[in-house]
């Protein structure tokens, strides 16, 4: 287990933050703690973000970024809904096609990035607009809803009445992604590229092919998140995925995966998913508007990148941090001289 989820100082700090945050909400926010089963049920509200974050982790490990995850979620959900409602396709077959479509859209991102040599940031920003426009066009004025009870179980069901289906799927996927990154040849190549693209190339790694697969994985996970959202609401909207991007990127970066690639693991991301999920739900229950929460998450994203950069020698060195923060110190010398 230690090999699968190597524990770093960063991860231990995240555990502490999670415990503090959770206890804080329990004590300060009436109605937040709703028994053990109630707490588990809260995860249904935020795990779609977690699914996106898992896929996004793979892309960010290569040093890339995928800004199109939100629109892929929306488009995939719309595709699924149309297949079910307009073409009468079997629900689970439609889900499969929609997830496959997500993979295809991610693959297209990868092609644009590796073959046309467009920066990942610009490439996925552009495809984000393209995909979301297609989703809006397909969805039309009155998007479909009502996909049946069985499909609803994916988003809201619970095994034995108390373990959410989403949570089980998330745990299985998180372990799967951790195995992928730490134990497979693909994962090793991914990390090599993230740390040093040239050295990976010289070692015979087909950098472009590894990258294309990473964007494909991100697309699949984004599409799956869209399906889960559709199941949870029993309805689809073209812009359903728009809220996913900011929180998911923050989960990955707060989870300790370096925005420059190479460094970090899935344990941290899983912890960050829980932290930001608890934060979102806690804020909601405490009565803060979504605007406040979004602002807070933006600030967390910024500060987790900034903190990582302050620790930039890729290790903990408090001396260097204090030196870098020295501008915060009051100007003692000035006063003593006068």
């Amino acid at each position, binding site marked *: 287990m230690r090999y699968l989820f190597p524990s770093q100082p960063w991860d231990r700090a995240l555990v502490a933050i999670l415990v503090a945050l959770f206890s804080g909400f329990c004590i300060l926010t009436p109605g937040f703690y709703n028994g053990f089963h109630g707490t588990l049920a809260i995860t249904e509200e935020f795990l779609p973000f977690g699914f996106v974050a898992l896929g996004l982790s793979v892309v960010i490990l290569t040093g890339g970024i995928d800004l199109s995850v939100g629109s892929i979620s929306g488009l995939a959900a719309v595709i699924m809904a149309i297949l079910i409602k307009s073409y009468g396709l079997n629900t689970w077959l439609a889900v499969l096609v929609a997830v496959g479509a997500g993979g295809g859209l991610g693959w297209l991102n990868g092609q644009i990035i590796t073959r046309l040599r467009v920066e990942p940031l610009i490439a996925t920003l552009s495809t984000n607009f393209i995909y979301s426009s297609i989703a809006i066009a397909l969805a039309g004025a009155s998007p479909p809803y009502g996909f049946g009870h069985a499909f609803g179980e994916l988003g809201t069901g619970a095994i034995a009445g108390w373990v959410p289906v989403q949570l089980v799927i998330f745990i299985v996927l998180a372990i799967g992604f951790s195995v992928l990154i730490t134990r497979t*040849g693909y994962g*090793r190549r991914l990390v*090599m590229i993230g*740390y040093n693209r040239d*050295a990976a*190339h*010289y*070692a*015979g*790694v087909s950098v472009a092919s590894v990258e294309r697969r990473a964007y494909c994985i991100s697309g699949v996970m984004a599409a799956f998140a869209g399906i889960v959202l559709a199941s949870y609401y029993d309805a689809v909207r073209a812009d359903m995925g728009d809220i996913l991007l900011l929180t998911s990127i923050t989960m990955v970066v707060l989870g300790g995966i370096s925005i420059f690639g190479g460094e970090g693991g899935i344990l941290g991301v899983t912890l960050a998913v829980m932290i930001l999920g608890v934060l979102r739900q806690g804020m909601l229950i405490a009565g803060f508007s979504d605007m406040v929460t979004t602002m807070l998450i933006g600030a967390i994203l910024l500060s987790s990148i900034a903190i990582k950069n302050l620790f930039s020698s890729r290790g903990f060195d408090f001396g260097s941090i204090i030196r870098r923060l020295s501008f915060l110190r009051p100007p003692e010398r000035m006063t003593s001289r006068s």
Partner: protein
Amino acid sequence: MSRTPGLLAATGIDKRFGANSVLRNVSLALAPGEVHTLMGENGAGKSTLFRILAGIHQPDAGQINLDGATLDLRNPSAAYGHGIYLVPQEPALLKELSVAENMFLGMLPTRGRFPSRIDWKTIRGQAQDSLSALGLDVDVRDDAKHLSIAQQQLVECAKALLRGCRIILFDEPTSPLTGREVGILFSIMRRLRGQGCTLGFISHRMDEVSEISDRVSVLRDGAVTDEVGRDGFDRARLVRAMVGREVIFDRRRVRREAEGEPVLSVRGLAHAPVFSGVDFDVRPGEILGFSGLIGSGRTEIAEAVCGLRAKSAGSVTLAGQDISASSIGDIIEAGLVYVPEDRARHGVILPMSIRDNATAGQIGRLQRKGGILNRGREVAIATDTMRRYQVRARGIDQPVGQLSGGNQQKVVFGKWMSTNPKVAILDEPTRGVDVGAKDEIYRLIEELSAQGMAIVVISSELEELIVLCDRVIAIYGGKIAAELKGADVTAARVGAAFLGVEAH
């Protein structure tokens, strides 16, 4: 303008980069109007010392005085202010700007009041004058990218003079230059000295050092080991101070003519304008040397052979199999590896462990069903690499970035050799490693060749080629200029060949 600068003295300089102590209690005095040369092996700390004098790095301890006054060189402009200018190893001109703009960068003269206009006339005039004064005949309106390295260095000299700098430090200027260009540079250095400038110079070519220097200081492992004036020059003494012991560059094995079918054949390899018409063979058990100046195309040829770089024509055959169009991964699988020159950029991934690095060339072979890596094999390969190449480290999980240069190089070696290649191309295999490690690496190369591996050594060090190689191919201007074997592999012949002096 022609005021003679005072004595520039650095005393007790210490400098560390992270865990590496680069300079230890170093003192150096540059007397007015002399050419003072720093000698030392790669990594001895020469460049760091010059960079400290030029305000690029700050020393951790020690002080710098000019004419007795203590200087605070917190950045390069502070150094300019005191008349100190460093001509960097790679001239840092902005390629897309004109020569004149480059020379006046950061001090463009303007005329008129707000909004002032840049005074192009003055700029061009002064730039042209100062270049002519150095005997450099280029149009200052031309883009800097059209200049040769030698011309760029002279532009840097002119920049120094324009800024009123009278202490000019040259960081290994001659290594990318041809013999003729070195001559021109030296005549300009003499002229500057004649005008009363103080010049610092870094080189490890003995001939150049004895030709130009008034005084030589030798650095070894971050400390000054010797300092001699012009009259005290003695090659043996300087070499001893540089390497810390008597070194006799001697053949350690009989140069032989390899027999049998070539294992690697290259025919008509070309990629204009970098290289063209490259044909060569390597046979099992042979060590072939590739000599040439930096920029001669030798690295580019090797990279094209190994699939790392595009080629427009030519065929590469490895053990009867045409690999001209194969991917790098397939070429490594087929048994041809290229061990790159730039260790930190291409050779290893510094934050990753010895285990990850040692196995990085053969991830495909370590995958079991479902792509899961065989951890036992990984550990075995890494442990074997550490043992065979005597890597000094805490264990296989230590990040390679924490090891010394020589030990990193051994990991690089292990990484490629553990793929069991038939042919290995080693690009500057001993760059940046100390003398002891160098010796070990030579021994390893000879051992591998004795086991039947065909080895190509790319090197700009004459001694290295002469000590190691059975046959030497000299590359000049992207073409094979000469091939020397047997008794012809001598310092004189090889040196002449890679300077383009000797024709076929």
